[in-house]
């Protein structure tokens, strides 16, 4: 790696270090850390919110128990899926369709609707080829906001379960949803949109502009320059860790990610909220040391995967060297395994993107993961298999790490001779049952489908050999973790994949967040045990290693055999 690539990483860290604490503080206020419930900007946002509450006939003063909270979320998701499904099925006959896109097939719409509502943004289709401007704008862009907001509502509900004692309710879903959209996501997205446009991301209302190309000797002498209101979608795509961009090439596309400045800003913005939520967590539980150690765990894992991926890709593909290709770094080229990568980002800039996009549930890509070296490709895959906790999707990432913390507390807590407790709440059978469901959900949303795909002839749309297995594993890991990035060689528009991956996404989303809210509901009833020296401390480095260790060992033991036959085997055969 060049020294510039390393400094680029440090710049990213510095940007986050500056932005995360204030945003965390702001979000804590939004979710009611202040005794009087006030938050910055009340004079502006307050009336907007109340207007929305009135339109939606929501009693914003009424709090919900966990099950009602979860039901609200499910109802909202159901309505969103129906709306999006109808939109995609009808887009061919609706207005604002300058590129003349046809309506999407039933199974295709089913899969896409679930994909965007579950914050996965898995795209079995090519955005510019299949989706109308209207669907992008009032369908996908909207879900990019609200699926993210729903995830944040989940973690806020869970945190209230921890902070409140002997209570019943964990907040009001509609209020949390609305406040998240209005006070956090919209302002940030608007600012980020303007920055993206200033760097060259497109934001207009027309379709393709036809250019007459310069070299007249080529077969095709025209080029379609695509248009659309897409910088605004790009902004929320990263901020909400969604990842579904308007173009097939996603953040590798020059109009989504024009230059290295937008590249680092996109990485920054997809990490911004997940990390700030942890900082917020520290304020909400009134102990910022607790947040610091979780942050350290997340960032630690993230950095390991980032550096690993950068190195793997920068080292290149030995098979290419054999073919007479120069992959070395020099003053005149950045080198590395450049298949599927953009020159302006280089191999290092891709590794710097690939780890955060899979450590969060974003799934945006600025280079094609399928063409990574075997180890370089295994890294983002494993990063997802850890359950996306480094730092994870907006809201759900912190949920994931808190679940890991509960598991670590449980096992280690016994070792100190007390009924395990986390932040004063005892972790007992009821919670462990939900934790077990949570932990099992992702492997169950992934492995049965992946295993079936590996042996079903009709499901064979992947490359041959161990790499094909990697594709199956990666793609179901992506749907089960609501990531959305892909080993994209594998064609997933078939009946088999739209169905199984649709189910995988649903399971990965709802079999985790419903247990998480249930944990909140169980914890909220409990009293708070005062911390003493007999309490296992959960703000120490030792605890940090424990949480990371639990996450790694659970994922490792679950996925090691499959990885051995996929990427590890492919690597050994290089």
């Amino acid at each position: 790696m060049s020294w510039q690539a390393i400094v680029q990483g440090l710049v990213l860290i510095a940007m986050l270090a500056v932005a995360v604490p204030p945003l965390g503080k702001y979000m804590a206020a939004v979710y009611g850390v202040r005794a009087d419930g006030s938050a910055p900007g009340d004079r502006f946002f307050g009336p907007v919110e109340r207007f929305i509450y009135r339109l939606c006939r929501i009693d914003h003063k009424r709090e919900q128990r966990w099950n009602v909270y979860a039901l609200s979320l499910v109802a909202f998701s159901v309505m969103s899926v129906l709306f999006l499904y109808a939109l995609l099925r009808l887009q061919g006959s609706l207005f604002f369709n300058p590129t003349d896109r046809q309506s999407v097939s039933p199974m295709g719409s089913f899969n896409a609707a679930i994909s965007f509502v579950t914050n996965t943004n898995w795209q079995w289709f090519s955005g510019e080829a299949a989706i109308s401007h209207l669907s992008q704008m009032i369908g996908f862009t909207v879900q990019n906001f609200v699926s993210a907001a729903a995830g944040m509502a989940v973690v806020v509900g869970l945190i209230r379960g921890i902070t409140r004692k002997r209570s019943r309710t964990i907040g009001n879903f509609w209020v949390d949803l609305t406040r998240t959209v209005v006070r956090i996501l919209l302002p940030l997205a608007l600012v980020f949109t303007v920055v993206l446009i200033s760097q060259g991301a497109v934001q207009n209302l027309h379709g393709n502009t036809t250019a007459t190309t310069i070299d007249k000797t080529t077969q095709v002498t025209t080029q379609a320059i695509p248009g659309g209101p897409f910088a605004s979608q790009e902004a929320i795509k990263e901020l909400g860790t969604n990842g579904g961009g308007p173009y097939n090439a996603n953040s590798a596309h020059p109009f989504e990610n024009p230059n290295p400045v937008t590249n680092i800003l996109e990485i920054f913005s997809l990490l911004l909220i997940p990390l700030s939520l942890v900082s917020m967590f520290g304020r909400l539980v009134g102990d910022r040391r607790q947040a610091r150690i979780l942050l350290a765990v997340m960032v630690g894992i993230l950095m390991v995967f980032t550096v690993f991926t950068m190195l793997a890709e920068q080292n290149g593909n030995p098979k290419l060297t054999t073919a007479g290709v120069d992959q070395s770094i020099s003053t005149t080229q950045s080198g590395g395994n450049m298949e599927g990568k953009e020159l302006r980002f280089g191999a290092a800039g891709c590794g710097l993107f690939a780890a955060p996009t899979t450590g969060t549930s974003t799934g945006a890509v600025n280079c094609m993961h399928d063409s990574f070296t075997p180890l370089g490709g295994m890294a983002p895959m494993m990063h997802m298999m850890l359950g996306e906790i480094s730092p994870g999707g907006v809201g759900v990432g912190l949920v994931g790490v808190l679940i890991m913390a509960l598991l670590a507390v449980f096992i280690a807590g016994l070792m100190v001779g007390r009924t395990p407790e986390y932040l004063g709440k005892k972790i007992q059978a009821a919670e462990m049952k939900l934790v077990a469901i949570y932990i099992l959900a992702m492997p169950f949303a992934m492995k049965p489908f992946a295993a079936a795909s590996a042996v079903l002839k009709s499901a064979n749309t992947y490359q041959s050999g161990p790499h094909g297995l990697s594709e199956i594993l990666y793609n179901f890991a992506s749907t089960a973790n609501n990531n959305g990035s892909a080993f994209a060689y594998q064609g997933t528009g078939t009946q088999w994949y739209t169905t199984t991956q649709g189910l995988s996404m649903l399971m990965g989303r709802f079999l985790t967040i419903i247990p998480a809210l249930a944990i909140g509901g169980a914890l909220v009833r409990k009293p708070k045990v005062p911390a003493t020296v007999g309490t296992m401390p959960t703000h120490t480095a030792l605890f940090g290693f424990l949480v990371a260790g639990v996450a790694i060992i659970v994922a490792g033991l679950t996925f090691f055999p499959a990885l051995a036959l996929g990427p590890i085997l492919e690597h050994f055969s290089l």
Partner: protein
Amino acid sequence: MTATLQQTPEPRAPKVRTKAPGSKSIFDPAIVKTASVDSLKKLNPRTMMRNPVMFIVEVGSVLTTYLFIRDLSDATSKQNWFAGLVAAWLWFTVLFANFAEAMAEGRGKAQAAALRKTRADTIATIKMPDGTTTQKASSALQVDDLCIVIAGEIIPGDGEVVEGIATVDESAITGESAPVIRESGGDRSAVTGGTRVLSDRIVVRITAKPGETFLDRMIALVEGANRQKTPNEIALSILLAGLTILFLLAVTTLQPFAIYSGAPQSIIVLIALLVCLIPTTIGGLLSAIGIAGMDRLVQRNVLAMSGRAVEAAGDCTTLLLDKTGTITYGSRQASEFIPVTGVSASDLAEGALVSSLADETPEGRSIVELGLHDFGLTIVEDANAVLVPFTAQTRMSGMDMSSGRQVRKGAADSVRRFVEAEGGSFPLEVLPVVERVSKDGATPLVVIDRSTPAAPWRVLGVIRLKDTVKAGMRERFDQMRAMGIRTIMITGDNPLTAAAIADEAGVDGFLAEATPEDKMALIKREQAGGNLVAMTGDGTNDAPALAQADVGVAMNTGTQAAKEAGNMVDLDSNPTKLIEIVEVGKQLLITRGSLTTFSIANDVAKYFAIIPAMFSGVLPVLNRLNVMKLDSPRSAILSAVIFNALIIIILVPLALRGVKFRAEAASLVLRRNLLVYRVGGIIAPFIGIKLIDLLVTVTGVVK
């Protein structure tokens, strides 16, 4: 009423640790023998089903055995050897786990058998309401029957002494050979069926139905007959079940992946992998750990009514300790008489003596003795003297002599209130004296008298009752504090005295002038703050608090009500035991947590043994994962299975004895246990499997 000095039993000699009857060392041959048989009996699937992890192993054993037999005729001998050995070792895995449980139960059973002997039927002499007596088999006794028991007889059932006083040998239950006094009234009236009266004659009112006596319950408890999983055990079982499902998924989906890779696996190998991955070590030892934890309490002569109580003991954050008997020696001793101006020391001594003549508490006797010895006083017989007992209202006691003289002694504030209410004057010079005595941690008692009921009360002076803190208590409390447990001293003393003793003993807090209501309120307050409270008690008025506390340890010498209310009974009636109980509770959880960690950490090495072995035949490059350089695929798989089985049996002693407990802060305990059980759990199987592989290879049974 005759004011006489009554001979009371000497305070007990320092306790020699005596074990409960039937207790044995861990590997007593008789127990091992029974356990071996029992571990076969436990193979019954219906029994196994209670432990999902081991049930899966049993199913795997059956399946591999079936496959082994099915293929006996047409497979090569090498394959047969391999299949047969895997099947055999899977059976051993199940048997070893059963053996662990049977061993833990065995100790209890042996103890129960010893207890049963003392339950032999006896004939009870029933005192009928009309005064006649009849004979009745002890098994036919009814509640409220009055039994006459004379020296040499066995008390036929649990009950309360309603008449008489006797020395009783309770060694059958407590293992304590020194006889104890049981008498009617007060807090020493409870007797237990099966114990023997050594002297005198008592009438016992039966309080428990046959079959529900203390002895019966004790037998059931040590036998583990109605053992229910404790809350933490349930939570842990859920986690283990979750992990088992996870590995079931990993192994079942591995086959399609293996087929994809052109290396399909035999069922035997998949079963071997599954058994190695699921947490068999902790799954096999979990119930043994729980039973052994209860058993460790029994070894300390404590009967826990439920495993839940044992766990709660480990969780306690607040210990309520009675000052008297726990923190200080049972009795306070009068050490000084401090007269007020104008009263001679011997006058005060005489007043103090008279006021205490009828006071049978150790304090009262010590006052009398101090008067007799140091002041050469003699006791004057006064047949018509009237005893004025201590009441909670007056908080004074004393004597009304036939001459009309009245003497009282009591706490300074109540005496002062009393004197002033009666129109007398309370010399202010007493106050600094009282305060000084209190501050020293001693208890001041003020003595007053008047020659006739018409005369004004006269303050004679102050008695200093010295309180002695037991040796070593401060260290114990420091340890408690290091573990994050607060100790609160409960005392009837005034706040000043209490503060001084609390300071001397090193407790974290105290409740002075405690009434049962105060005690109850304190428990509720602590619990509202999220604390778990443990306490000891013996009196009937302790019963509500014992019931309210999360861990209520009743003294065996205490009343029936107290024993019913608490969730543990200390047969030694040693209040200091509470601290040991907490330690046992903690040790139980630590052992579970440590072995869970160890069990899961083991899986890493097993993967590195089995995965390359599964695939290196068809995909030779994967042999690079064979970091242990195991000899052959078959020896690798077999070695992992053997290690998996052996580790259970190796850890049985640890499961039964418990992980060594040290009183330290949680973070220290965690660091050490993590190092030993997580890091050790990762490394140990690498070494173990390699060694077994060498052995397997040398014997040449599989190639």
